[in-house]
């Protein structure tokens, strides 16, 4: 986690760009500068440049800088929901919330972005705050602020709750905080010290005046009515004692707002800045603090390391991820360099293996074969193989010739010569017997091409025969030449 020396927060609040730089020193904060722009043609890019931030698209991110930039997103287009879920894992909560968002919201899931934050577990149930906004609206906002590369985009209402808590003596766990602008009022519900709901009303400080007129009475009544509806929406209509804090710069207009709310039966009170622990380079009045309440609040939120922000831009804007992509996925030079190194390594390793391999084999052979000449060993092995090919197993041949004939067949001679068919001569009792003998030989392993000629002796009626056959590869001239 990086420790930032100072935070620059920029917001577009009340039709005005406002920026501050806040530094933390020990337990106190120091406002280094404040800046605002009321020009009608002002935009995020121009104002960021005015604040001294780099807005060039090609400019490298100042990673060594000890300040962090955050942008505030107006919550007017954001809807909040409160729900309870059983005590389950974060992943399961996420799927429950996504399911609820799909069923409750009128937009399809691909058109919305949501963020959620779970409260402490109570009685086996967990309260969850869900913030939902249109994806298109958020993408447009990201497009506007991307130029000055903010590290975070936060909800303005989070900043309001934070500054109420730190500099407006906001010591209640549950309360409603009103931040009144010129023509609108941000109503924030605080539960367990954190923002849990927010709504924007279209009545602002300009609509109230200290003078009691008919029009003023009507505005006060409308405001009180709107507030009742908001509390109803927040589910707090039955909590008569719920404190309603109206952030104020100390002027009388805010007192009239509080009065109208009190008349409506609400427990309203004014909250003015209490600047304990806040310093500034130039002197700042309560009006200044009130004017820059939102950016100061956002900066305080970032300084609060334990703050679990509702990051609705999580999937749309992640500057850290972009840096990683630029290094590895979009850096062909790095890829080419790595590929070249790998190629060189491959060549070196192949070379080393080919050079070292035979040497090591020879060394091992020298060690294992000792005095015996390797070549002699090879020659001997080759000769043994040749001899094995040249040696017929004549005992086996005699056995086969003997076993193939039945009783009554008498052999008189056998002739074996390499390169010629084996020839056997003898006498048989009958042609059938001779035929069976031929068949048996033909079926014997290693014997093929069996032929015979036979003559019958007129005196003895015996059949004399001469039989020839090929034995393994020894009878073939071509095979001999090959071997």
């Amino acid at each position, binding site marked *: 986690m990086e420790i930032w020396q100072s935070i620059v927060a920029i917001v577009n609040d009340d039709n005005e760009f406002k920026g501050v730089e806040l530094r933390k020193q020990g337990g106190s904060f120091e406002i280094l500068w404040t800046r605002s722009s009321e020009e009608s043609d002002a935009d995020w890019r121009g104002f960021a440049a005015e604040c001294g931030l780099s807005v060039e698209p090609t400019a490298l991110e100042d990673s060594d800088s000890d300040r962090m930039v955050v942008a505030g997103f107006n919550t007017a287009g954001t809807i909040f929901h409160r729900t309870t879920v059983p005590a389950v894992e974060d992943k399961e909560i996420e799927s429950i919330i996504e399911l609820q968002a799909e069923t409750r919201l009128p937009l399809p899931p691909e058109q919305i972005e949501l963020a959620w934050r779970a409260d402490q577990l109570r009685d086996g149930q967990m309260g969850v705050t869900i913030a939902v906004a249109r994806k298109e609206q958020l993408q447009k906002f990201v497009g506007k602020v991307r130029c000055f590369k903010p590290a975070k985009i936060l909800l303005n209402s989070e900043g309001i709750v934070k500054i109420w808590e730190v500099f407006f003596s906001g010591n209640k766990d549950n309360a409603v905080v009103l931040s009144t602008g010129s023509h609108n009022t941000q109503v924030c519900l605080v539960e367990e010290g954190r923002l849990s709901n927010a709504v924007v009303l279209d009545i602002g400080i300009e609509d109230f005046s200290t003078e009691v007129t008919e029009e003023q009475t009507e505005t006060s009544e409308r405001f009180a009515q709107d507030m009742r509806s908001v509390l109803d929406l927040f589910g707090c209509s039955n909590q008569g004692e719920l404190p309603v804090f109206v952030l104020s710069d100390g002027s009388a207009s805010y007192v009239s707002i509080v009065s109208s709310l009190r008349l409506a039966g609400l427990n309203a009170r004014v909250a003015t800045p209490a600047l304990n622990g806040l310093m500034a380079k130039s002197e700042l009045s309560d009006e200044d603090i009130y004017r820059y309440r939102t950016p100061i609040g956002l900066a305080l939120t970032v300084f609060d390391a334990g703050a679990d922000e509702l990051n609705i831009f999580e999937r749309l804007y992640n500057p850290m991820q972009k840096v990683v992509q630029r290094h590895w996925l979009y850096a062909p030079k790095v890829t080419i360099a790595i590929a070249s190194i790998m190629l060189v390594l491959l060549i070196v390793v192949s070379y080393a293996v080919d050079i070292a391999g035979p040497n090591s084999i020879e060394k091992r052979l020298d060690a294992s074969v000792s005095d015996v000449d390797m*070549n002699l060993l090879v020659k001997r092995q080759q000769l043994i193989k040749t001899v094995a090919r040249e040696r017929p197993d004549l005992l086996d041949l005699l056995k086969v010739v003997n076993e193939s004939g039945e009783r009554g067949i008498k052999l008189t001679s056998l002739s*074996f010569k390499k390169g010629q068919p084996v020839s056997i001569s003898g006498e048989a009792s009958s042609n059938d017997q001779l035929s069976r003998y031929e068949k048996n030989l033909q079926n014997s392993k290693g014997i093929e091409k069996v032929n015979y000629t036979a003559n019958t002796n007129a005196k003895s009626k015996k059949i004399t025969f001469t039989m020839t056959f090929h034995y393994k590869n020894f009878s073939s001239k071509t095979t001999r030449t090959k071997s």
Partner: protein
Amino acid sequence: MKVGKAMIEKLSNKDIRTLKYGAIGAVAIILFVFGSAGHERWTKAKANGAVLRTKLDTINVDKAKQAGLASIVPVFEMPQVEEEQKFLFRDKLSEQFKKAGIKNKPLQIQAGRKSPQAGYKLLLVKCNATCQFVQVLDFLARLNENPYLVGIEELKIKCDPKKQGEVALDLTVSTFAR
């Protein structure tokens, strides 16, 4: 360092480009010189490796094949020069005839056919004998124990119809000589 930096700053783009090409050329020359020597060495090493592997393949026969070879050629002596080999082979052969109880006629040395093994001559030894058929079987069973024997080139067995069990044996065996 400062002087070097100042010199670099004085160089024009053309000068820098020329220096770059020069550096690339120098590296290429060095690579070529060492690379060609290395390539030659590599090629030689690969050839040596291939020869060694062939030799190893020749020697390194698996157990089953080795057992098969040993059953056909249980003993083997490397061939000697022709005269010595003739003597050794004939001597061993005579001994084997004697062991089988065969009284053979004098052994005749003959020039052989073309040798199946380059670098070695093939010598043939012919012998004739008249003996019992069982003696022939006994002789053939022990013939593989002759360490100089290459193979049986010719075998003729003819029975004598007048004398029971007696056969005329014509045998030609071969040996290698250097």
